[in-house]
């Protein structure tokens, strides 16, 4: 039986020939991502800015009457709603800011939900309220802060781990490719204005883990080859390592993308953004483990000598004992 091979045996692609163009593209994309995040802003969910979110399905309609809804709710005098389709065209989420003074009087926001629900029912008898989320400004502030803390600590902890396991250059390389992957994912959310909530933070943490996983596999091979082929020019050695791990890289990316696509297409719409973030993150992470993580090492001065074991005092004594100088 012939087995399926996604990547032919003994590939010899000169990946590093493209290191400059790809680096420029990567840097430009990162700048673009952050510019967008700061200019366009992220479309934060109620988790992060506080407010009310009401999820509604119009059971008898093919399409949710978004424009009509917006007009109706605006008339209620609670400010402008943010109405978005979630998944199916007949499902929407309606987000409202907390009414003025709701921090001190929680009854106000209850009242608002009641009014909106009643209004929905009267205009659209087929509207089914699937869920209501209400987050106070205080809790959302805490959630935002802990989310950023989690991201920061994760990046730091993982880099320290790599620094211990490998040389410092590898730690820096891993960190750079990690920042790259997370930046581009954030960029995606700034461009598409998909809702950025707590589950997306979980997705980004996962991308962080995956990005490093991918980088480590390549780095592991580079380290192994550095010990094996001391005299090989660095670029050639990096190409060799990337090629040797290519079959694995592609295979794993493929399996991850298959499961995530299944989740995106067939899974519940509530985690659509989560799946989308992971898909982009994994594509980017695969690319960066080849084009960002590997070339970084040459720039940071890793050479064939980096992994030659330095002579320890014990080695020296043993040598002397054997009568060698």
């Amino acid at each position: 039986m012939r087995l399926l091979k996604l990547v032919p045996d003994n590939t010899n692609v000169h990946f590093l020939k493209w290191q400059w163009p790809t680096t420029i593209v990567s840097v430009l994309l990162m700048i673009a991502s952050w510019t967008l995040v700061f200019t366009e802003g992220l479309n934060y969910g109620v988790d992060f800015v506080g407010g009310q979110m009401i999820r509604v399905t119009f059971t008898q309609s093919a399409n949710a009457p978004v424009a009509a809804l917006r007009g109706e709710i605006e008339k209620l005098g609670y400010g402008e709603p943010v109405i978005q389709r979630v998944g199916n065209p007949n499902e929407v989420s309606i987000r409202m800011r907390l009414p003025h003074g709701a921090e001190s009087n929680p009854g106000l926001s209850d009242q608002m939900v009641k009014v909106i629900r009643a209004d929905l029912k009267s205009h659209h008898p087929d509207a089914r309220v699937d869920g209501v989320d209400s987050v106070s400004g205080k809790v959302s502030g805490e959630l935002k802060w802990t989310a950023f803390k989690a991201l920061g600590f994760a990046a730091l902890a993982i880099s320290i781990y790599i620094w211990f396991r490998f040389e410092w250059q590898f730690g820096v390389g891993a960190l750079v490719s990690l920042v790259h992957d997370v930046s581009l994912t954030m960029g995606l959310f700034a461009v598409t204005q998909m809702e950025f909530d707590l589950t997306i933070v979980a997705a980004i943490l996962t991308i962080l883990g995956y990005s490093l996983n991918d980088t480590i596999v390549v780095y592991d091979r580079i380290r192994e080859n550095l010990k094996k082929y001391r005299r090989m020019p660095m670029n050639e050695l990096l190409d060799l390592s990337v090629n040797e791990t290519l079959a694995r890289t592609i295979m794993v990316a493929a399996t991850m993308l298959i499961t995530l696509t299944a989740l995106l297409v067939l899974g519940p719409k509530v985690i659509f953004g989560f799946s989308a973030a992971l898909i982009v993150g994994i594509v980017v992470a695969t690319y960066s483990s080849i084009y960002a993580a590997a070339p970084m090492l040459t720039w940071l001065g890793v050479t064939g000598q980096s992994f030659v074991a330095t002579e320890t005092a014990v080695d020296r004594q043993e040598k002397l004992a054997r009568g060698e100088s």
Partner: protein
Amino acid sequence: MLDFPVWKRIWVWALTLIVAACSLPTLVTQLGGTWPSQLPSPQVNLGLDLAGGSQLLLEAQPSDVAKQRLETMNETVRTRMRDAKPRIQIGDVSTANGRLSFLLEDPSQLDAAREALLPALNGTGSVREWDLQVVDGSRFVLSQTQQGLDQAVTQAMDSATEVVRKRIDALGTREPTIVREGAKRIMVQVPGLQNPQQLKDLLGKTAELEFKLVDTTALQSDIAQGIVPPGDEIVPYAPGTPGAGTSIAVKRLGGIRGDTLTNAQQTNEPQTNEPVVSIQFNGQGADKFGRLTTENVNKPFAIILDGQVLSAPNINEPILGGSAIISGSFTTQSANELAIQLRSGALPVKLTVVDESTVSAELGADSIHKGAIAMLVGTVIIVLLIAAAYGRFGIYADLAVIINVLMILGVMAVFDTTLTLPGIAGFVLTIGTAVDANVLINERIREERRRGRKPFQAVDLGYKEASRTIFDANITHVIAATLMFMFGSGPIKGFAVVLMIGIVTSVFTAVYLTRMWVALWLRRARPADINI
């Protein structure tokens, strides 16, 4: 690495099968079957986003507790000074800025006053609860210590949690989860509850009931202008009562608090058929109530709930049996609500809802259904792909993936964890990473074969070399998952739990289990070549 003596094989199989079997009760129930009740049945709980239901996060304000303690201290100081022998005269009492300060009329009583106060400053616990300062030789300033306040908040939250539990139990909803979160929050989850309004109404009141005498001498014009007659306080009528919008003056002292009730029921007033709440005092409360009503026949007294007057009926005759009727323009529902609140006791501190989320049962069921389909389709495609790519080795890997899913469910059931929607995503992801380990191993075996190593040696080296990488790679996932668990809330935690369990079980199934199968096959078949 390929040595598997019989005892090891038994051990590995036993562990695998037992853990995987723990997933069966959950699977059988979810697929619509019934699990025999005589067997042990660990179950994976479904989070509210999958089961449908409501979740409320309630928060107490420590400043409320501080204010209450200040009031209590105020009373204590007055009593102690009055009861001191000789009596200590104090004046200019103020509770501004969170501190209690008062002036001694006679500075020579300084030591006596200090002596009388000291026991009250330390409270019951081991921490000092109040700081005492003496200014200008005659002014006492009492301020709360942080430890004292913290302890009071903790105590208040402990009893608040109990009260919340009692109130929710009275609603008759099934299996609510009520847990303390941090120092001043309580998380309430009620599966199946679609509209939490009733729950919020029930928990939104502290339900502190007081009976106070109405000061009939107070002028209505004074009250309207907010001029408080000496020894009185002004209390507004509750919205919905006939007197709503107006206030009355009641005597500050000499009233009764409703913390001595043994029971409260919603009933209907026999003559008017109006919904009312009948209450029953305990022995001590009944005595006090009897004395109050006896001494004040033909005077009105106010029934006050949470600082608002419900009604101010006339005392027609002494009420000695310890049971009374509260009327206050109730509907049957609001009377019933008040009865529950009074039965469960007053909340020691007001709780506000800071976070609330409701998921309909339809959406929850839809999420489970779609999540399961996505998982199934993803798994089937991967299983086929891996089998096509690595032949026999791929089939071993596939078996490992399937066992892995069962084992994750099993571990979750045993540890009584909750599966949430992000948790399902975690499952899908874990399947991906579990495959990663086998891909690493099998690619390595391929490589070693290409370098011309014999099958046995290639497999041995493949596992050995790949294991190091797998270990490194999984550690990064463990770090990410741990941080998600530590800092995350709600959805992030649900995801992290599955991820962490999945990392451990996937390394076991993908590395250890497949290695055993491959080793046994190699020893039995002794193939001259392996197709990989």
